[in-house]
């Protein structure tokens, strides 16, 4: 992680990370909370803006990079992960954060998710899950609940929704967390831990869409919250704890669900390159094997 080391003793103000652009999100959108929490987490970690890169897909949530004062990349619908991985592998020093919505990440982009989990490149992926397609005006999303009525499911959805946490666990993501855009203080803690984690970290943020789902989405989530950091039985290093979370029915657990350190990709790549370079092939000799 690249931080503002020369300011080690000083406080960094969260506003440093805000761009001058005013968000065009609807008043009351959960994504405002995510933006604020992210700025506070950056400030806590003293990330250097010039060493931090936010890559997003396309969607309301994917507008996030525009509102942050760092390297921003509003990329391709569903492709934030491969683009983020490419950037991180090209420049290990960057703090790379991929961001997007539930449609972006779990519909069109879902094919990239298992590979990001197993490849374990040291990036953080945050998904602002509002259970709907916001930007395109309220269509069914893969996380929309059973029976959901949307502009493309006029008679109610007949498809089983994806649970992103269950998916991440099945894909052996080394770090899995959930936060709520309506509790910024808690979300900051979660984001700090996720960014600090060495390897691929995934955070599902419940971020209500007041326009296409409605204000009650906030209230319903709030009523069901269960804070894992206050649960003495929860141990994020124990997979059984994570399994318990994905099977819960009435409550919605927020916090660090799973944290399992294993060597990340760059570390393994460095080792591999070192072993391969022992052969010390010179550039000008590269074609020697083809000589008769």
């Amino acid at each position, binding site marked *: 992680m690249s931080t503002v080391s020369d300011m080690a003793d000083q406080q960094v103000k969260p506003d440093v990370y805000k761009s001058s652009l005013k968000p065009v999100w609807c008043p009351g959108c959960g994504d405002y909370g995510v933006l604020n929490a992210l700025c506070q987490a950056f400030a806590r970690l003293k990330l250097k803006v010039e060493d931090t890169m936010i890559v997003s897909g*396309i969607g309301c949530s994917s507008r996030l990079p525009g509102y942050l004062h760092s390297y921003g990349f509003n990329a*391709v*619908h569903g492709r934030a992960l491969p683009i983020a991985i490419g950037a991180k592998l090209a420049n290990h020093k960057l703090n790379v954060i991929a961001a997007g919505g539930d449609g972006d990440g779990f519909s*069109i982009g879902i094919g990239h998710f298992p590979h990001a989990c197993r490849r374990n490149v040291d990036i953080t992926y945050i998904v602002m899950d509002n259970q709907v*397609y916001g930007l*395109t005006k309220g269509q069914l999303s893969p996380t929309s609940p059973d029976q959901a009525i949307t*502009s493309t499911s*006029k*008679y109610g959805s007949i498809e089983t929704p994806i649970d992103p946490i269950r998916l991440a666990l099945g894909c052996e993501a080394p770090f899995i967390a959930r936060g709520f855009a309506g509790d910024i203080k808690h979300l900051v803690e979660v984001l700090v831990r996720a960014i600090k984690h060495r390897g691929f970290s995934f955070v599902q943020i419940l971020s209500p869409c007041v326009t296409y789902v409605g204000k009650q989405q906030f209230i319903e989530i709030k009523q069901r919250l269960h804070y894992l950091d206050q649960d003495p039985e929860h141990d994020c290093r124990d997979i059984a704890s994570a399994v318990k979370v994905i099977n819960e029915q009435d409550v919605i657990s927020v916090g660090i669900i799973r944290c399992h350190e294993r060597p990340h990709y760059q570390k393994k790549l460095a080792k591999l390159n070192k072993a391969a370079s022992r052969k010390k092939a010179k550039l000008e000799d590269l074609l020697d094997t083809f000589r008769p």
Partner: protein
Amino acid sequence: MQKRVLITGNEACGAGAIAAGCDCYFGYPITPQNELTAYMSRHMPEQGRVFVQAESEVSAINMVYGASAAGRRVMTSSSSPGISLKQEGISYLAGSELPAVIINVQRGGPGLGNIEPSQADYFQAVKGGGHGDYRMIVLAPSSVQEMYDFTRRAFYLADRYRMPVMVLSDGRLGQMMEPLRPGKGSKSSAAKLPPKDWALTGASGGRPKRVVKSFFPADGTLERHNLELEKKYNLIRRTQSRAGEYFCEDAEVVLAAYGTAARLCREAVRRARAKGLPLGLLRPVTLWPFPAARVKKLAARARAFLVVEMSSGQMVEDVRLAVEGRVPVAFYGRSGGGVPEIGEIYRRAHRLLREKAQGGSQDRGTVS
């Protein structure tokens, strides 16, 4: 005759598909075609037919591939970025000789571009956006009525020639409302078509098995297959090219435009004619096959062409090819969501008419 209804182009397209007997529709949301997906989600179930919002455009076009192989009438729709993702599937449909209807409600590009109307996917549509030696029939509506009629006709052409057919529309046509008279328009009755004796319908009863494929690895087989495709494409070139003409008989300067741009040009011609100026409009209705013979014929008597597009200049290349240098071909285009202005079309055409009268012959290839 049925009563007229006021409807958007996107919805008219959906209504046309349902009228044509579309059995399955697979889509994915993208602006500015969302009304079409929403329309299908409401009305396909009412007809007992299949509607699925796929997880991506790649998935949607492959659902189309499967449903088509099963012998069903099938459609997908999207807008430019999503159509790019469908190119692989379109190439496979063409290679496997399967019918399918694809609607592109174009928006500005490249990349994510914007959601304004555009005609910048002309090259992709008519020159083969996917890989390999294939062609796709491309129809260009320029009214809400034609969104309905051409979608119906697309199903007929797709079945008749066993190939993908695209309706190339744009955000303006998709979103605007106009009166539509349903049921009017082109034939799309399945009765006149040959039976789908290639469809994968289950091989009980001892008939020989059928294989749908686009893979021809054995020596020479792909070339033979492609020669067969070419024969079919040549037949379509000879028989299916269509264009509309407006005041072309005595036109000295001919505007050439399709879709939304053609609507604007029509108005410019009307204004010119009101002042007695010899301006005409050629409106390609099929973009592939391109009505090259019509252009060539007009080039024999007109003194200049002015091609108008909502792009930086794409169809103009086909007009120039057809004109073969006989007369100058000027271009006026707006890119990135810009729409050509009628006044500007008129001014440029007027300038060409004046230049012609004075015997000048400059080729103005400007983009503004």
